[in-house]
């Protein structure tokens, strides 16, 4: 027990590890903004009418969903300098997260956009809106609401994946915990790190779960507005709910 939970070391490492949080948050916030912006851009390209661009975006998404993030970090931090491109540890972390999670986010945004009924685009276009106007004023405002739960899940994965940056010497939680472990020859710092991760991830897990169950309750199960026949209203909602579920990437992110 003492090997994992030593009171003295616990106090010591708690402060040490909490001090790394600003770094973790910095990478996380920058990475998040870059990944979501890049993902949204990729999804719009993937759904555009230019075949070559569509194909390129699709290839990018497949490639970066297929690569381990750890490999990406190592490639950026240790590999790119051989080509003359030297990034510091923090920038390498942000870039790795943006490249990898951009691909996942793109799939989430695409599923969200495609889950909006085709009739919405048609109604918008029939009013004379361009493709861009229809996206901006009609499709995206609705799609954003749909993608909040999956993006929250993605954020959870991202928080955990910041630990991978310990291999490129970003002074984050796991990196410092491992250092400390070596010094004190005891596993308590790791326990502390685990607790800190959990403090952030579990509330988010609960939030995401609540949003998902709320959505399930509200959409197909709710009382249909008077006058819509089941075929037109309810079946649609169920169809699109199933649609978005089917299109979302399955499994873990790391």
């Amino acid at each position: 027990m003492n090997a994992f939970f030593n009171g003295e070391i616990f106090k010591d490492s708690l402060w040490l590890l909490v001090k790394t949080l600003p770094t973790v948050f910095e990478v996380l916030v920058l990475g998040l903004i870059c990944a979501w912006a890049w993902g949204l851009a990729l999804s719009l390209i993937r759904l555009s009418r230019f075949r070559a661009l569509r194909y390129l975006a699709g290839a990018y998404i497949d490639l970066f969903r297929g690569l381990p993030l750890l490999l990406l970090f190592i490639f950026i931090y240790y590999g790119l300098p051989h080509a003359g491109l030297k990034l510091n540890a923090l920038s390498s972390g942000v870039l790795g997260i943006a490249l990898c999670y951009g691909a996942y986010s793109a799939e989430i945004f695409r599923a969200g956009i495609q889950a909006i009924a085709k009739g919405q685009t048609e109604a918008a276009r029939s009013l004379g809106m361009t493709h861009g106007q229809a996206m901006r004023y009609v499709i995206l405002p609705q799609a954003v609401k749909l993608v909040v739960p999956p993006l929250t899940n993605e954020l959870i994965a991202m928080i955990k994946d910041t630990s991978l940056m310990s291999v490129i010497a970003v002074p984050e939680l796991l990196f410092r915990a491992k250092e400390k472990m070596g010094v004190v020859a005891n596993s308590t710092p790791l326990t502390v790190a685990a607790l800190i991760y959990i403090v952030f991830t579990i509330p988010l897990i609960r939030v995401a779960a609540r949003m998902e169950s709320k959505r399930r309750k509200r959409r197909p199960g709710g009382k249909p507005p008077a006058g819509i026949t089941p075929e037109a209203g309810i079946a649609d909602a169920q169809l699109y709910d199933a649609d978005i579920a089917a299109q979302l990437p399955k499994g873990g992110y790391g």
Partner: protein
Amino acid sequence: MTSMIELIDVHKSFDSLEVLKGVNLTVVKKEVVVVIGPSGSGKSTMLRCINGLEPILKGKVIIEGEDLHGPHTDPNRIRQRIGMVFQSFNLFPHKDALHNVMMAPLKVQKKPKAEAEQIAREQLCQVGLAEKMHAYPDELSGGQQQRVAIARALAMKPDMMLFDEVTSALDPELVAEVLGVMQGLAESGMTMVVVTHEMGFAREVGTRLIFMDGGVIVEEGDPREMIPNPKEPRTQKFLSMVL
């Protein structure tokens, strides 16, 4: 007589399935053309080709003298003059009735906000929904939603209106309120193409009846003559089933 819509030998396929096999149609100003036919006959597809929601394989679509697929034509500009109402309403669920109606004048025609709102209020009053300006689509009945959809299309002050089975998704008791709005619109002189199964509407409001089957126009004529005395056997068979 000005021709508003001209379809010349329009062909349309979905993959290998040929849905329109050479449709020719001319609609002049103030006409109310009612299109009937069995499901799969291509009537909805024809309607959607008129405003270019469906690309065509062959032929020409000419709107008020302009070729919709011409090399220098901006289809978005032409669509502003063609209002369309759908079977499934397709209201924007994230906006209330007022903002559904004012969105296109505001964003497409770039009208000032106050003017767009004024137009939207007038149009909603016109369809009898003055009380429901701030209701969201899911708070409205099907009939009310469809009337908002009509107001939304009319807010662009279109030269013509297309109606795609707009009462088919409604409970029977809600059909009349929507048909009433359409009848009023026809009486005010709007050029209309109406795909429907409502034979009463065809008889009373239609100025021309078109029967489609197998991707072509089989028969057309004055609805008051054609409904009681169809000439083509296929029209006879269809009418005997729906009447």
